[in-house]
């Protein structure tokens, strides 16, 4: 069994620099300036069959580019990749029959027709047998609770319903690998959790390898045992989501309740005050100082209760992205 194998993947592309102002616009009529952007900058990883892996990273980190390379849509500048034993960018039909790429911000269904007609088109393109088509279609529409919507023109569906139809279209040919680029973007909370549940069940029942990117931490938390964190085109973490906190959090949150409801002066000297609701106060204390600070509080003040917590994961990841240095990955040329 082969999953996904990526080695030293690099993608550099050229973008036209949008001119600002009238004069620059006129100049750009005759001469354009470009800059080189290293969208993916030497990424390596392996994904086992049946794994569900999340890509995490800020906008422009290179998540989508990586997915597009793995889907064979774009050529990498250097590096190698193998999915199911295929080199993606050779775009073999045998490969294209076995995976799907779902892009949350785009739709491929015929706008003015019921989704069922687009499904039929997929059936013809992928050469899906009638019996299998009926079975998969029935299962998926039931799983996503959209059985009565497939005969309505797509343009009349809500964003969430449309996304479910897109998901069905992507799964019709029973792909062995599924790439999902922001599958829940713009959806309401209920639709998000529906899609999440469907993906989890589908992964469990069909042993499909799933790689997804998302802005929503909840997606990743709920679905992925393993995350790849990418920033500025580089892989900065590969492992369980929970490891991120222990690895990257520089501080802990210390919550204290004082016996007499009065706080001692000079709390700021122990750490940054995050919240203060008498008689509770929460301090952010540097990780290496936590034991010492806790002991000091217990010794010097009348503390009724003390609680040490990890900071929320969004915050850690935010700090991580802010802290990881932007390498010199843009160069200009004319």
């Amino acid at each position, binding site marked *: 069994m082969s999953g996904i194998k990526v080695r030293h993947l690099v993608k550099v592309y050229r973008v036209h620099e949008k001119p600002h*102002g009238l004069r620059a616009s006129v100049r750009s009529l005759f001469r354009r300036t470009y800059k080189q952007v290293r969208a993916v900058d030497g990424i390596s990883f392996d994904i086992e069959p049946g794994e569900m892996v999340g890509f995490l990273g800020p906008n422009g980190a290179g998540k989508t580019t990586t997915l597009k390379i793995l889907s064979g849509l774009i050529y990498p500048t250097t590096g190698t990749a193998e999915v199911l034993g295929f080199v993606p960018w050779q775009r073999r039909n045998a490969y294209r029959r076995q995976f799907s790429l779902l892009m949350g911000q785009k739709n491929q269904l015929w706008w003015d027709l019921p989704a069922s007609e687009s499904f039929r088109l997929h059936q013809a393109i992928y050469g899906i047998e009638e019996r299998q088509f009926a079975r998969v279609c029935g299962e998926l529409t039931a799983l996503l609770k959209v059985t009565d919507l497939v005969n309505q023109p797509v343009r009349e569906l809500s964003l969430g319903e449309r996304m479910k139809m897109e998901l069905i279209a992507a799964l019709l040919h029973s792909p062995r690998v599924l790439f999902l680029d922001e599958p829940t973007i713009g959806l309401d909370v209920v639709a998000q959790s529906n899609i999440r549940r469907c993906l989890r069940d589908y992964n469990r029942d069909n042993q499909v390898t799933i790689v997804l990117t998302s802005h929503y931490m909840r997606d990743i938390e709920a679905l992925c045992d393993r995350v790849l964190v990418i920033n500025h085109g580089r892989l900065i973490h590969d492992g369980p989501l929970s490891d991120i906190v222990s690895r990257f959090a520089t501080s802990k949150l210390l919550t204290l309740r004082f016996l007499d409801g009065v706080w001692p002066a000079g709390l700021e000297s122990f750490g940054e005050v995050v919240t203060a609701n008498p008689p509770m106060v929460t301090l952010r204390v540097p990780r290496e100082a936590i034991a010492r600070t806790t002991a000091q509080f217990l010794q010097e003040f009348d503390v009724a209760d003390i609680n040490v917590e990890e900071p929320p994961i969004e915050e850690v990841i935010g700090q991580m992205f802010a802290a990881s240095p932007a390498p010199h990955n843009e160069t200009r040329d004319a």
Partner: protein
Amino acid sequence: MRKYRTVFMVALADRLVYRVDFFVSTFLMFIPIVTTVLLWRAIYSGAGGENIGGLNYSDMVSYYLLVMVVRAFGSMPRLASTVASDIRDGELRKYLLQPISYLGYQGTLRLAHKIIYFIMAAAPYALVFWICRRFLPAWPDGGTLCLCVVSLVLAGAIGFFINALIGLLGFWFLEIASFLHLFMTVQYFLSGHMFPLALLPASVRTVISYLPFAYETYYPTLVLLQRTEMASAVEVIGVQAVWVTVLAIVTRVAWSRGLRRYAAFGG
């Protein structure tokens, strides 16, 4: 006025980033003229060089060239389809929240596009007109020139309102592309773009002169041709002004009716 100025400047800069192919595309626009003129050359030589509909061969060449100038004012590419799709896709709501009139916004945008277009198209047009100078009428005197400009601007206004009206059909119909297509076919003929209306029988011409289309192209072109015996400039401008007023009122009514419908449907 200030907010419209910003819209204007942004549109201007936006337009400029289109590259050199602008020049190519402007020259390409003369292709239909070349083919039509060549056809007329063959027709005139077949007919033994006589007047056709009061126009000799030079007049005919000038007519089609000047129609290009008039159409440059009156044509509003993609205006109707933009208005209709803004209505259909709910984009309109964004504008309704802003303290800016939607059609005012579109009008300003068109004005910006037109001005930048004239600036950029001046050179290719001048070149084509210079090449064809032996066919063209004499350069008009100051007074005539003023009348020409007024007539052109009014042609532009008529074009704007007609196209905006077609776009507003989007309040009532999901897809207006087919209407637009039909309209363009009708307009091509009735405006005198296809051939000078003088070639038609007088009775047909009378009917057409009660419609706005001829005042968007045919009559302004005659004003530019300085064929006062075929159309008096002042009279043409007068009727154009009436049409602009009528169309502006109709557009206004259609807009408020449509908006009421829009609100009723919740967008």
